[in-house]
């Protein structure tokens, strides 16, 4: 307007500060992936990323899992500084890793360490599906192997939360060999009397489902988690028929005798505590 032209007052557009940007829109609200209802993210976080309406269990980061399970301040991380090499010289692999390191603030797809759950000391490995779909390469195999060995030498239980699309293709046969490597470690641990609890979360498929995820003394899963060896699409192509809606869900696996129990996230800490208590009381009074 002409009036503005004469005005001495300069006009500025308001640009939110970096900090304000982080605080506002993205992530203020969250749409449930199950029922599509919209919630405040805060509310969803407080509810452990479980939808208050339909009970859908959303992806849970390793960090969130640690906070939800361990007694405050009790968790200490192991081997944080192991990162992937590119052993096959696979094209674009390093870029993909770097991108996911930035995105997740993790060095690879698993966090290992020890802490206490209602006072019971345990070693733990928590996979995080945000990093390369939780795929297992040399780093994941090495960190899990070390965590199991630590559990063995400290004579404490080993708990693993799996979340993985399977082997990490870019590390070729070396990623396949992580299945053997972790298996040898688990055999040493279990032969020495160690208690291993596996909790499969969404998704647990391929090489991870076909190795450590399935050989706990107890095998559990979170509700609705996708669990299976081969992918749905490959199976449909092979057998040329449509698979049932609930195929390869935790509930499907429970029905087929492949799981000990499906445990909702809200009951996880309590259930684990009970099991740890029963195991630690073993033989005390008799």
């Amino acid at each position: 307007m002409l009036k503005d032209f004469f005005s001495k007052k300069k006009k500025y557009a308001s640009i939110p500060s970096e900090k304000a940007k982080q605080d506002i829109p993205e992530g203020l609200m969250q749409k449930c992936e199950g029922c599509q209802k919209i919630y405040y993210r805060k509310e969803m976080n407080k509810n452990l990323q479980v939808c208050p309406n339909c009970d859908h269990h959303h992806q849970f980061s390793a960090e969130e899992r640690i906070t939800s399970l361990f007694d405050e301040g009790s968790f200490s991380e192991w081997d944080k500084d192991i990162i992937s090499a590119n052993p096959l010289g696979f094209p674009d692999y390093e870029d993909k890793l770097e991108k996911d390191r930035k995105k997740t603030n993790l060095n690879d797809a698993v966090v290992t360490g020890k802490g206490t759950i209602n006072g019971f000391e345990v070693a733990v490995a928590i996979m995080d599906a945000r990093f390369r779909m939780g795929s297992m390469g040399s780093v994941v195999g090495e960190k899990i192997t070390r965590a199991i060995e630590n559990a063995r030498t400290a004579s404490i239980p080993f708990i693993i939360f799996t979340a993985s699309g399977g082997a990490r293709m870019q590390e070729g046969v070396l990623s396949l060999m992580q299945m053997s490597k972790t298996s040898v470690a688990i055999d040493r641990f279990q032969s020495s009397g160690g208690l291993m609890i596996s909790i499969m979360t969404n998704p647990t498929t391929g090489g991870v489902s076909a190795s450590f995820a399935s050989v706990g003394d107890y095998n559990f899963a979170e509700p609705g988690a996708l669990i299976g060896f081969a992918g749905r699409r490959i199976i449909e192509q092979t057998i040329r028929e449509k698979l049932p809606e609930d195929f390869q869900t935790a509930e499907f696996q429970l029905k087929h005798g492949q799981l000990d129990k499906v445990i909702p996230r809200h009951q996880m800490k309590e259930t684990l505590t009970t099991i740890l208590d029963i195991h630690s009381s073993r033989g005390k009074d008799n």
Partner: protein
Amino acid sequence: MKQALDFEKPVIDLRSKIDELKKLTKDSDIDLTSEITTLETRLEKLEKDIYGNLNPWDRVQIARHSDRPTTLDYIELLFTDFIEFYGDRLFGDDEAIVSGIAKYKGNPVTIVGHQRGKNTKDNITRNFGMPHPEGYRKALRHMKQANKFNRPIISFIDTKGAYPGKAAEERGQSEAIARNLIEMAGFKVPIVCIVIGEGGSGGALALGVGDHIHMLENSTYSVISPEGAAALLWKDSTKAKQAAESLKISSYDLKQLNVIDEIIPEPRGGAHRDVKLQASYIDQVLSDSLATLKQLNQEELLEQRWEKYKSMGEYIEIDANEE
């Protein structure tokens, strides 16, 4: 005549030409001996050129050759008194896996292996060598017995992978494979694994946790098929040839990655060209392996197995203080 692969067409053409000339010499008065000699020299050179420079994709073709010898072929040539046993005692029998007991140079052994078919009918019975959980559980049952009666285990690996089917999932394909891995890890008897064809991912590995792992020169061992990798990475399964190179699946690659112990040479052109000769090459490596492993007591055996697998993988440990 064995079915020819694309890359060996020039060799096949030249060889049939030589055969023609030979026939001509024999059936008529024309003497072509000198021409034949020249061509045979050329053939020798051509064979050396072609078979001496196989790329990964060529080897994939050889590993998948329909005439490639299978587990049962080698069992017949390498062992005596083989008796095959069936069933997992839980669900059924899976003909994609064979297992049983035999003698190797007079000593008792347990043998397990994937079994492909040689023709369509046979392949349907064998489910193309792709096992269901009951196959792995049958193998496990026999391996446990080997452990109990202190017999070495010899495993032949030859599968595209575990069968990706509905029933296989319902009966716990994952658990069956995982269970085999962890049980094999703990057996107190020597385990020698030999990849004779395709070593396809978890389905191969389920018979593959051994003290020694050997590979036939042209066999492959991979986390995913080249076609599968190409489809996933580049959304284009026709780039399988490229994927075969990137994935590093040949015996030479695996030797370099410290995953396998020995590369067992193959007759020129592949194992199917001379099965007996191939069996004799396997025989040498297998007998050496068993002799070496026999010297270890149970504790040493398990310790060595742990050391072997512990060192698999490549990663970088960064110094946190430098960051």
